[in-house]
């Protein structure tokens, strides 16, 4: 049965659990509590919730100073706005000033579908990764979302997390969530090609490996939810011996997972690295799954691309 629980709902659950015992946990929203599924946090812990109105720059600066006053601040706003409208605040007030702000980009990638490019965040990985002292995470399903948030609650440095809007199919299952913070999760080992994916495209990549297996192609799959710091050790180990690497991401072709993987592989173990991503143009109107299918980023498309690369 298809999963009905969105990653954002899991975020709310984890933050509520934390807030019940840790009064330093503070959530900030910019008229975004509904879209973030955080209305119940605001209702349950009103004294640990700050509403700043439709003002994303103010959101991030206020969060940074709350953090410097000892709060564990979670600033939650659509990924498109928090990563571009508040970019300078993220750079200066969070990363450069080394404050413990967790920047949560909700409805990331193309989850806003027909609302168009103002609402899509296809450049957030590139933008955020380019900031020194900023970490970047894109969890793949609800189970991993819980792990990432639990880990972030334990550290005191800034980070950017992108999660999507709609429920996504599970990659993991209850009680079976292999997870070590900042370590990529090996979903399959393979000897012909390595598929490295992040976020909502991990499931499709895992399914693609199954399709390839049926055709006699051995594909490894890595869930690289930790884009920065990129887990180079696991990546280089998994890439050893394969003929090519295929990266899959809900992002522009520039400066994202594909660029980073290519940089690492070319320096250490040169071989072909091909990137499957959104195009360098406004994305076609449609729901996430329609958009992915259109650009060959669903399981079939990824499998076809892998086959094409292997020749």
């Amino acid at each position, binding site marked *: 049965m298809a999963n009905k629980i969105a990653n954002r709902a899991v975020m709310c659950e984890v933050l509520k659990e934390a807030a019940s015992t840790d009064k330093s946990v503070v959530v900030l*929203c910019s*008229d*975004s*509590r*509904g*879209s973030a599924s955080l*209305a119940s946090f605001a209702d349950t812990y009103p004294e640990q919730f700050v*509403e*700043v*109105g*439709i*003002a994303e*720059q*103010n959101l991030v600066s206020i969060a940074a100073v709350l953090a410097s006053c000892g709060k564990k601040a979670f600033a939650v706003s659509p990924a*498109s*706005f928090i990563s571009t*409208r508040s970019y300078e605040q993220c750079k200066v007030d969070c990363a450069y000033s080394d404050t413990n702000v967790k920047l949560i980009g909700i409805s990331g990638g193309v989850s806003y*579908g*027909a*609302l*168009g*490019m*103002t*609402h899509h965040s296809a450049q957030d990985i590139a933008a955020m990764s380019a900031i020194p002292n900023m970490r970047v995470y894109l969890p793949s399903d609800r189970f991993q979302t819980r792990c990432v948030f639990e880990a972030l609650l334990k550290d005191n440095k800034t980070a950017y997390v992108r999660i999507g809007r709609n429920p996504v199919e599970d990659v993991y299952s209850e009680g079976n969530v292999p997870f070590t913070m900042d370590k990529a999760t090996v979903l399959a080992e393979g000897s012909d090609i390595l598929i490295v994916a992040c976020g909502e495209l991990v499931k499709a990549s895992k399914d693609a490996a199954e399709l390839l297996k049926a055709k006699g192609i051995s594909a490894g799959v890595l869930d690289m939810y930790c884009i920065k710091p990129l887990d180079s050790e696991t990546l280089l180990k998994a890439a050893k011996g394969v003929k090519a690497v295929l990266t899959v991401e809900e992002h522009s072709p520039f400066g994202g997972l594909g660029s980073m993987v290519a940089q690492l592989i070319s320096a250490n173990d040169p071989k072909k690295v091909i990137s499957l991503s959104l195009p360098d143009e406004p994305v*076609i*109107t*449609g*729901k996430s799954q*329609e958009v992915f299918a*259109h650009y060959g980023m669903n399981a079939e498309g990824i499998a076809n691309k892998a086959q094409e690369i292997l020749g």
Partner: protein
Amino acid sequence: MRKLGNVKALSATAFDLRRDALDIIMAGGGGHIGGDMSEPEILLTLYERMNVTPETQDSPDRDRFVLSKGHCVETLYAVLSYEGFMNLDEVKAKFSKFGSEYIGHPHNTLPGIEMNSGSLGHGLSVSVGMALAGKMDKKNYRVYTLIGDGELAEGSVWEGAAAGAHYRLDNLCAIIDHNHLQISGNVDDVLSPGDIGGRFAASGWNVITVMNGNDIQQISDALDIAERTKGKPSVIIAETLKGKGSPLMENKAGWHHKLPNQEEYKQIAADIAAYKEAILNG
């Protein structure tokens, strides 16, 4: 500005436009219905009076409009269709569909749309630029923008306000759709904009208050005052009702972006029709 036509007929038309926006939303499976319903009289009055038609939409002398609260695009599509820029059947057939150019925010590749919007807080700055270009080129066109009251929390709005006053852009008129609601509830509870008129006045703007922003005559009169005011830009603060057209939605924050079910659809359509009847019989 052009002269206003028959006010009673136009007031009834505003409810036809609500019905069109509702049908566009139903066809596309979603839309910002609440804010769509507070703005029809404002958009209709503007497009009835601005010097721009489908024939003159590329003229350098045309008046310009920017929907800063871009999420309420469905009513804009309805008005642009009514005024002949677009075809309503095509909008309904394509809105939000796969591959469509009729997306959920204004896009400037579509006829009659000047600027892309959807990220709140851009409209005033963009309009300042248009008005400034008009002054540079000694053109007589006027520039209008419609801004949400929740949107006023964006700092960029006030950067635009400062520039508009500094350059004495009397060819610029901003309209605030003061429906008192945003996504999370009442604007004053979420993040109060304070004394909106006072803030604009302090920035150097001429402030005009419209007690009923869903009244075409009142809006039109305010537009006349704005046009007559020289040496500074004008802002019209229009008191409107979010969700206007059906008691089901009126003044209810939950209807900001809610897709009516079939039963609610029928109810809303009937309520809109009743409003229109009342105007025609009034």
